[in-house]
């Protein structure tokens, strides 16, 4: 790892100031994506701005008909939260299947969503529930936030502060995990509620996407059989040592069906 300066601001405003002042600075939350990358010298930030001292970024609360989760909230906290489990059990289930215990003890929702790894779990739930991303500058709809592999609507000096999930009537998640890393090979997050009927596919393509043919079918009839016959096109899906695009296209149908069964 190359060395860097270290800052631990106590407020979002101070963190934004540090970030704006240094184009080569990087934010760090749980560090479970950033530190492995730095260890391989894939990145050379001049300084790290540690968000972990900012109390405003922590916590889970129910506000009206939504669950609002602070950016620094760790996967273990979402997985074991009574508030989340009561309102959106599919979200707690998803968080409880990220990586392993130790990854969940450090990794945060803000880090995962800002990073937008195509194989990550959270982007599926955020888009699949039609959530709203709160930042240091504005609020962004999930439909506008994810912009393909490792790319989001966040600007260079913008910090993700919280995510607001509208409470659905039903939601379900299923993933085929890579047996070594537990990252997603192909996953589906389905929901029905204030944001309409959503079927979001993660892991399979270069970024999360909505599967509109399956959404139309589920809107007409909410049943596992409704998505089972719909073929996912393999064009544009990922092909790598873990699986071909054709295999992933097949998994999309299987995972969507399992997600609908899970949603009930």
């Amino acid at each position, binding site marked *: 790892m190359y060395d860097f300066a270290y800052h631990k601001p106590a407020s979002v405003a101070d963190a934004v100031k540090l970030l704006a002042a240094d184009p080569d600075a990087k934010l760090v939350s749980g560090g479970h994506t950033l*530190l492995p990358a730095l260890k391989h010298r894939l990145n050379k930030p001049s*300084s*790290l701005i540690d968000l972990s001292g900012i109390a405003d970024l922590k916590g889970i609360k129910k506000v009206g008909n939504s669950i609002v989760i602070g950016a620094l909230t760790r996967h273990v906290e979402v997985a074991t939260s009574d508030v989340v489990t009561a309102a959106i059990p599919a979200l707690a289930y998803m968080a409880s299947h990220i990586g392993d*215990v130790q990854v969940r003890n*450090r990794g945060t929702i803000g880090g995962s969503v800002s990073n937008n790894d195509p194989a990550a779990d959270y982007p599926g739930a955020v888009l699949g529930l039609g959530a709203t991303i709160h930042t240091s500058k504005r609020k962004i709809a999930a439909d506008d936030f994810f912009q393909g592999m490792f790319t989001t609507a966040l600007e260079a000096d913008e910090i993700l502060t919280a995510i607001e999930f509208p409470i659905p009537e039903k939601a379900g998640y299923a993933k085929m995990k890579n047996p070594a890393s537990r990252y997603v090979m192909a996953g589906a997050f389905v929901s029905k509620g204030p944001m309409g009927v959503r079927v979001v596919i993660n892991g399979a393509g270069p970024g999360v996407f909505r599967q509109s043919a399956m959404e139309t079918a589920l809107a007409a009839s909410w049943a596992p059989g409704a998505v089972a016959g719909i073929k996912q096109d393999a064009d544009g899906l990922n092909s790598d040592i873990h699986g071909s695009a054709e295999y992933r296209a097949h998994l999309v149908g299987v995972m969507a069906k399992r997600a609908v069964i899970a949603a009930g």
Partner: protein
Amino acid sequence: MPQVTLTVNGKQHSVAVEGRTLLVELLREKLRLTGTHVGCDTSQCGACVVHINGESVKSCTTLAVMCEGAQVTTIEGLAAADGTLHPMQEAFREYHALQCGFCTPGMVLSAIDLVQKHPEGLTEREIREGLEGNLCRCTGYHNIVKAIAAAADVMHGKRDTIAAAAE
């Protein structure tokens, strides 16, 4: 150089580190606590697991500077002052839950966190899932799982000794 003050196995240390110093480097190279191992560079093997404020964490993927004020427990901090092993250590010995021993410090620390978080008890499946972050190249895991089940009984007061659980 940044200075970090933390408590390791009950003893406070104040150490000068670089921004990039990992917690495992602080433990092994500065404090000479070499029981914590490094088995990979992809954050996957769990040989480096320690407790930070009671929770299991991969010390190879945690910056030392991020541990200011933290309470850290390593494998060296588990046995009592008179050398009596922690029930989890005793169970690993009793059940032959190790061969080369490289993964063992991380396994033991992960297992203690797992048992403490489940006062209601653990099924075999829950133990296996709880060990997803720890790889062992030698044992095939079966005896590790048995050891953890026995230690859980002792830690939760269902049996008095590991030997009794082994019967």
